[in-house]
Every structure is written in structure tokens, then in C-alpha cells.
């Protein structure tokens, strides 16, 4: 709810002089999910202006990428959005494959989709769990991390790493699936479906949670598009837009799934609760995709299309995928050598943080945490 106070009236009534206060939130604040500093200009408890200061984790990934060859860049992409590493590799591999003009075997595409969707669930679980902690509910956080652990074990058994995988390579994968993977994934799907309901009972329909999030931080659709918002945040504002469907890549067009959008069930369309609930619904859709993919897995060699030497022709490509947070775009220019000439990453978190000031204006200071948590940023990607 936005509130505006007429300053002069207040001064007249109380006899006290009022003045604007500047409050620093961060860089080390638990609810900023990393190192982000917000400079909040306050009129009493009302925010009049919020200036984000970023760059605390800046290591200039783009400069590093220019000094390495195409396959050496992949571990660096892992470290941008460290909660969705699989998807970062996925997007990068697709971009370079477009430059090279190669097709990858169908089995590789299927495994990439499975990994990507598992990663989406894992990432959403962190987003939802930490959001609950920010709002003040500790239990859902533990539930979410318990379930995420199961996905991380699947990843660990597949490629040996739990967070930063280096699994999806240009043209293929580093390892094939282990023999028990299909079984274990099916078991996970069976296990996880009821857990979404559990989370709904525990948090989604909780009165206190709804009071804190419904009608708070409303992001109107036209503002969202103008600011380049994508992913669950855009869908939370009621726009049916998903790159997996609207600009389909890999083998997503073979699967049957819906795009959930915010409907304003608890308040206005585009409020924090809507953004939160879209993520819950998306996990269900991801399960659908994984179920279809894992049970129709084609046979094949996952390393057959990996090029011995990656040397794309002179050219440029902008390629984008639907990361758990939104549109992750890679703009790569090749000058014909083995190193990329320029790699620019359009990270969804970076873009979403830009709209923060627009949403925060007029809100109470306690809502900052509810709003910042609902747009779900990862600072590793904001700063790159």
C-alpha cells in the first residue's frame, strides 16, 4: 500500500520539525541475499527514493572471457548465477552452437532439459525458502532446503559437483547419465509432488504471510515491459510470456506444459504474493516436463557432437534462454579466432534490480524486505 504524507501538515500538527533521513541498508544485510547496498531516502517510515549500489562482487567476467577459449568460459558462467548454474551453461552452450551452426544429438537436448528443469525447481526452492525467512517464517526454509538437497544429490551423482557443475559443454555433455538416474528422478517426482501441497498449506495460504505480501510491491505490466522485466516477475504481473514457449529453443516444443501467470488471487495483479505464487506453480510445470523427458529419453552418445576445436566463423549472435529468474541472454561476437571477441551477458537479476526504485517508492520501510525477496535476485549475476 502506498502512503503519502503531507509534510507541512505533519509539522503543523505536532510542532516538531521533520526532515528527510538517509538510511543505508547493506552491503551486509541478511535479506539482500548477497552484497547489495540500498540507499533509502525516508520521510518518516515512508520511502521516497531508493538507490541500489551494486558492484561489490564485480570480477568482470566479460574481460576474463575474452582471454580464454570458448570451452574455458563455461566454468565462469557457472559462477554468475550460482543457484542456477546448469541453466547458465545451457544458455552459453546454445549461443556458441548457434555461432558454430552445429546440431547436438537428441539425447543431449533431453538431458539438458531435464537438468535445466531440475535446476529451476532447486532455484525456486531457495527463492521461496529464503523469502519465507525474510518474512519471518523459519520452518518452510528448512522444508525447501531438505527437498533441494535431493536435487543436488541427483546432480552430484551425475557430474560430481553440487553447485558449480561444468556439465553442459558446447556440443554435448561432460558425462552421460548414470544407470540409475531415470529411476531416482521418477522417485523424486513422486516424492516432491505432495511436498508442494505441503508448502502451500504451510506458507502460501498462511494469513500472516498473505498480510505481508498481498497488495505490496505491485508492479504494473506496462512498467514491467518497459523495464525489460522477464521470467516469474513478468508473469506475476499477468503476462503470459515464457521464452520456452514464445521463442522455443532446445526440445521444449516437444513437451506439454502450461505457463502460470499471476491472477491477483489475494490482492492486486503483480503484487509480491503473485510473484511468489507463480514460482510455486512453475515447480509443478517443471515436474511435468521432467516426467515427460525422463521417460522418453532417446538413446545416443552424448559426446559425439563435441567439437575438437571450437573456432566459430566471424559473426555475432544474441541467444536467450528462460533461466529460473528470467531471460538470460548471451551476446557473443566472434572474430574467427579460438577466443571470443566479446561476451556480454544480460542477466535477469541485473535487470530486475533496476526496477526496484520504481516499486519501492511510497512503501513502508518494512516492505523493502518483502519486495526485494519477491523479485529474487542473485548478486553473483548482478555484478558478474
Amino acid at each position, binding site marked *: 500500500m502506498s502512503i503519502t504524507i503531507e509534510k507541512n501538515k505533519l509539522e503543523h500538527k505536532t510542532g516538531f520539525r521533520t526532515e528527510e533521513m538517509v538510511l543505508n541498508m547493506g552491503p551486509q544485510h541478511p535479506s539482500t541475499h548477497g552484497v547489495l547496498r540500498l540507499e533509502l531516502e525516508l520521510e518518516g517510515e515512508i520511502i521516497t527514493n531508493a538507490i541500489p549500489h551494486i558492484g561489490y562482487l564485480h570480477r*568482470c567476467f566479460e*574481460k576474463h572471457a575474452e582471454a580464454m577459449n570458448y570451452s574455458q568460459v563455461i566454468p565462469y558462467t557457472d559462477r554468475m548465477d550460482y543457484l542456477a548454474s546448469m541453466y547458465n551453461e545451457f544458455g552459453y552452450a546454445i549461443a556458441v552452437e548457434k555461432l558454430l551452426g552445429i546440431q547436438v544429438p537428441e539425447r543431449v537436448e533431453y538431458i539438458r532439459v531435464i537438468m535445466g528443469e531440475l535446476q529451476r525447481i532447486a532455484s525456486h526452492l531457495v527463492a521461496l525458502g529464503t523469502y519465507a525467512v525474510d518474512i519471518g517464517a523459519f520452518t518452510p526454509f528448512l522444508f525447501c532446503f531438505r527437498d533441494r538437497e535431493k536435487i543436488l544429490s541427483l546432480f552430484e551423482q551425475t557430474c560430481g559437483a553440487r553447485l558449480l557443475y561444468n556439465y553442459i559443454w558446447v556440443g554435448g555433455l561432460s558425462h552421460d547419465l548414470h544407470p540409475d538416474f531415470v529411476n531416482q528422478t521418477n522417485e523424486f517426482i513422486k516424492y516432491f509432488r505432495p511436498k508442494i501441497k505441503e508448502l502451500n498449506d504451510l506458507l502460501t495460504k498462511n494469513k500472516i504471510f498473505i498480510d505481508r505480501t498481498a497488495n505490496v510491491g505491485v508492479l504494473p505490466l506496462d512498467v514491467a515491459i*518497459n*523495464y*525489460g522485466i522477464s521470467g516469474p516477475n513478468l508473469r506475476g504481473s499477468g503476462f503470459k510470456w515464457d521464452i520456452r514457449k514464445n521463442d522455443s529453443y532446445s526440445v521444449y516444443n516437444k513437451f506439454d506444459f502450461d505457463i502460470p501467470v499471476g491472477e491477483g488471487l489475494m490482492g492486486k495483479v503483480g503484487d509480491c504474493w503473485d510473484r511468489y505464487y507463480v514460482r510455486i506453480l512453475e515447480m509443478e510445470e517443471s515436474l511435468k516436463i521432467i516426467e515427460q523427458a525422463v521417460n522418453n529419453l532417446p538413446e545416443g552418445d552424448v559426446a559425439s557432437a563435441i567439437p575438437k576445436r571450437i573456432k566459430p566463423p566471424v*559473426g555475432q549472435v*544474441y541467444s536467450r534462454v528462460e533461466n529460473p529468474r528470467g531471460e538470460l541472454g548471451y*551476446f557473443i561476437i566472434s572474430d574467427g579466432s579460438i577466443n571470443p571477441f566479446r561476451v556480454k551477458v544480460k542477466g535477469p537479476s541485473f*535487470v530486475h534490480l533496476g526496477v526496484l526504485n520504481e516499486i519501492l517508492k511510497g512503501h513502508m520501510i518494512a516492505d523493502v524486505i518483502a519486495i526485494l525477496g519477491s523479485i529474487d535476485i542473485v548478486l553473483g549475476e548482478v555484478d558478474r
Partner: protein
Amino acid sequence: MKTTEEIFTILKNNFGDAMLELVTSQPVEHFIKVNPIEINKVCLFLRENEELLFDSLMNLSGVDDANGKKSADTDGTQIISGGTLSVFYHLESTKLHHKITLKVSTEREKPEVASVESTWRHADWHEREAYDLLGIIFLNHPDLRRILMPYDWEAGYPLRKDYKNPEFYLGMKVPY
């Protein structure tokens, strides 16, 4: 849905030949080259025209073309003089589902490009990033400050190809 060629024809009819050029020599992506000072006018037209409706800026990236005269510095690093810096705009229409790439090139010695921030607010931070890392000046940008690097960074623009790692930061020696 329109192709780059069709969009180019519409633009040419409205703006004339002087500030536009269609480049199709690249294998993956074709793009339209635009005069850097006129870019915002072209973008505003692309957004408002009924047939085009480019309501979304997908990405904005600055690039150092490194096409100037190259010479070696005393310490062996490269110096580039002359040549151009470029900015790429990737636009999309969420209503009509077409995409287009625009490119502007500006002189390295005086890199000035009109800001498209007033057309898409999304460009705000991306332009700040291009300024921060490449030193491209966006004219009429309301808040052109450094964004990722420290505000007091004096060693230049890191993504330029002739960037030198500074030995000192604020008088402190930086070990590598």
C-alpha cells in the same frame, strides 16, 4: 512478423538513406547500422509505429571494435588509437513477435551516442554499464555514473582492448 529487410524498408521510407545501412554480411545475425546521434529518434519510431511496436529492449551491449591503429607501449601492452566503439541494440516486439538488431558506431576518441533511456527505461542500467566498462558517453542520460566499478576508479575502462591493469588503487599496491 517482419524480417530485418522489411523493417529496414519501413525505416528507409521514413528516415532516408543518410543515417541507415543494412548489413547482411554476417552469417548468423543481420543488423541495421544507424547514426549514433539519431539512434533515439529511430528507436522511438520503432516503438511507436503501428506496424513495428518494438516495446521491449532485450539487450544493449557496448563493444570495443579494436579497429584503430595499434602500436606497442614501452611495457609491451597494446595502445589503440583511432577506430570505433560500438553499441548493439537487440529489440523485440512482445505483441508482434519480431526481433531486430541495431548497431551504432562512434569514434573512439570522442565516443558519443544518444541515450535511448527515454524510450525504454531498461536501457538505463545497461547504458551505465557500457559507460562504466567502455567509456561510451550516452548523451541525455539522466544519471550517467559508474555502476559496477568503484565510483573513484581512475584507471580507465576495463573492457577496452588496450586497458592496462593499474598497479595502484587509491595509493595501495594491488597484487596480482
